[in-house]
């Protein structure tokens, strides 16, 4: 590649990363600002962290959000894995087109539509069946499962398409019953994909504002709903502190995952080299 071109590509990358990360860096910086006026620097201080940690409202919202996120991620992973398996391994079945449509639509559906339609469903169900009589944690969780499972299904689909069917076929040829093959071969192969799906479903749920505001009832405020009600009125230094904590948590988690992956990959490379050396002698 000629040097002029690679300089261009390098500056493109620098610009792109700056665009993505400078706003977040400023968010973190202002959280340590003593001044109440967010963008005006008034000296280093941790007072907004104190405000944040002593707020009962924040703790309640966080607990509720985590609760919803864990239940959502677990159910979404189960349902999404089943859906992904059905779509990749079962070939044609009746209603497959509708199924693929329902799996891929939530990925792009505007949130306002999903939120409104689910709320109207819950109200209609309450009229006809007497359930759910009140809206809150349960309705938010159901709504989150519905869109999260689509993301999990996509991850499982791409993972399954990448894994050759040979292993499953071999197990079947050796007399393994289909269900046994599924539990002994397919699911272990899928485990990393399921973990990725669980984590994605977890963060999607923690991140959702619009759908939760539609299907939630009085008293049930998730963390994004709380953040939104505060930042609507302008800048809030305590929200900057909260953002910093979230960004740090994610960064540490990703760095850890990256480190583990890298170590695993190195181990595999080393094993390969050993094997190659062994074969050569």
């Amino acid at each position, binding site marked *: *590649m000629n040097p002029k071109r*690679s300089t261009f*590509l*390098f500056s*493109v*990358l620098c610009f*792109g990363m700056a*665009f*993505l990360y400078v*706003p*977040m860096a*400023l*968010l973190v910086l*202002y959280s340590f600002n003593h001044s109440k006026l*967010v*963008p005006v620097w008034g000296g280093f201080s941790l007072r907004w962290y104190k405000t944040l940690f002593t707020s009962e409202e924040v703790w309640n919202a966080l607990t509720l959000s985590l609760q919803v996120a864990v239940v959502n991620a677990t159910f979404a992973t189960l*349902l*999404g894995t*089943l859906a992904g398996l*059905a*779509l990749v*391994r*079962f070939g044609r079945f009746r209603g497959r087109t509708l*199924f*693929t449509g329902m*799996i891929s*639509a939530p990925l*792009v559906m*505007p949130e*306002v*539509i999903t939120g*409104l*339609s*689910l709320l*109207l*469903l819950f109200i*209609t169900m309450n009229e006809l069946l007497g359930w759910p009589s009140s809206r809150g944690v349960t309705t938010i969780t159901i*709504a989150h499962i*519905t869109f999260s*499972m689509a993301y999990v299904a996509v991850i499982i*689909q791409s993972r399954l*398409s990448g894994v050759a*069917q040979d292993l499953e076929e071999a197990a079947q040829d050796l007399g393994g019953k*289909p*269900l046994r093959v*599924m539990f002994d071969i397919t699911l272990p192969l899928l485990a990393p994909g399921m973990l990725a799906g669980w984590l994605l479903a977890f963060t999607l749920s923690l991140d959702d*504002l*619009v759908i939760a505001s539609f299907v939630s009832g009085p008293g049930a405020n998730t963390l*994004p709903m709380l*953040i*939104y009600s505060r*930042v*609507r009125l302008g*800048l809030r230094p305590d929200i*900057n502190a909260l*953002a910093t904590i*979230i960004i740090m948590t*994610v*960064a540490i988690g*990703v760095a850890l995952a990256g480190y583990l992956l890298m170590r695993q990959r190195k181990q595999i490379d080393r094993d390969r080299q050993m094997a190659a050396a062994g074969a050569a002698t």
Partner: protein
Amino acid sequence: MPPRPDTAGLFPRAGAAQAWHNWRRHFSDFAQTHWRELTIAVPYLWLLVFFLVPFFIVLKISLAESLIASPPFSPLIEWAEGEALRIRIIFDNFAWLLEDELYVQTYLNSLKISTVSTVLCLLIGYPIAYAIVRAPPGARHILLLLIILPFWTSFLLRVYAWIGILADRGTINNFLMWTGVIDQPVRLLYSEFAVYLGIVYSYLPFMILPLYANMEKLDATLREAASDLGAHPATTFFTVTLPLTVPGIVAGALLVFIPATGEFVIPDLLGGGNVLMIGKVLYGEFNANHDWPVAAAVAIALLVVLVAPMMLYQHFQSREMEPGKWR
């Protein structure tokens, strides 16, 4: 060996164990023969009930009449005398949407904003995706990770970050006033510009990732062949690389365009009262005005606008996911 019934009677716990065992065998037989059906049926039913049926309810309510009651709309199907169903369909809500200049304007404005944002995302995202593909393999993983990382942090807070940057006493205005370029703050926040910035910032990774996935699979030898045959780099780009990346461009563009059209958080936080977008109007009709039938009609109208791009996306998605494509 099947146990005799009398022993089972003498030892009730053994009987219970036997029943449990039998039940388990029946269940495992059932699972063994019907596991395919079960695997399909569970997620299928969930999506039918919680994804498909709600749309018909929205459709139904969009045709109802607004009432001050709970629920605040008239029943579409009423039991009249006898068993005859009297069906009242009122198209008033839709007629109102079409007559009211404001709604038409809002739809057109939403489409304009999402189209321009999609083009901007493509113009910024394409070179970035290209640069990542051409980066050394070691750096590639880290760069990709940096693109994905914002997904894992809060969308809401990333939009909020721009309030601090664009506000009248925000980072940019402070900086410009400090350097003396301006002496009065420039209005940046609560404008269409702020909304564009917010959408491009939030949706850029959605554009880069499909483009990267597509470019990664490109055959480098094609490009080399073109330049070996004497093609100028620009010619190679426009005749070889660009046409081959069209699937990535389409996927990325749809992933930005569709959700951006119905976006609520960005126009609400960064656009304030100055930028009209349909997602915000829907939310307002519903939350502030409590006019559910109109909110439902707005949702249906939005869906009608987005149905074509959504089907296109699904077409690409299902082609990408075709079983056995990688074998």
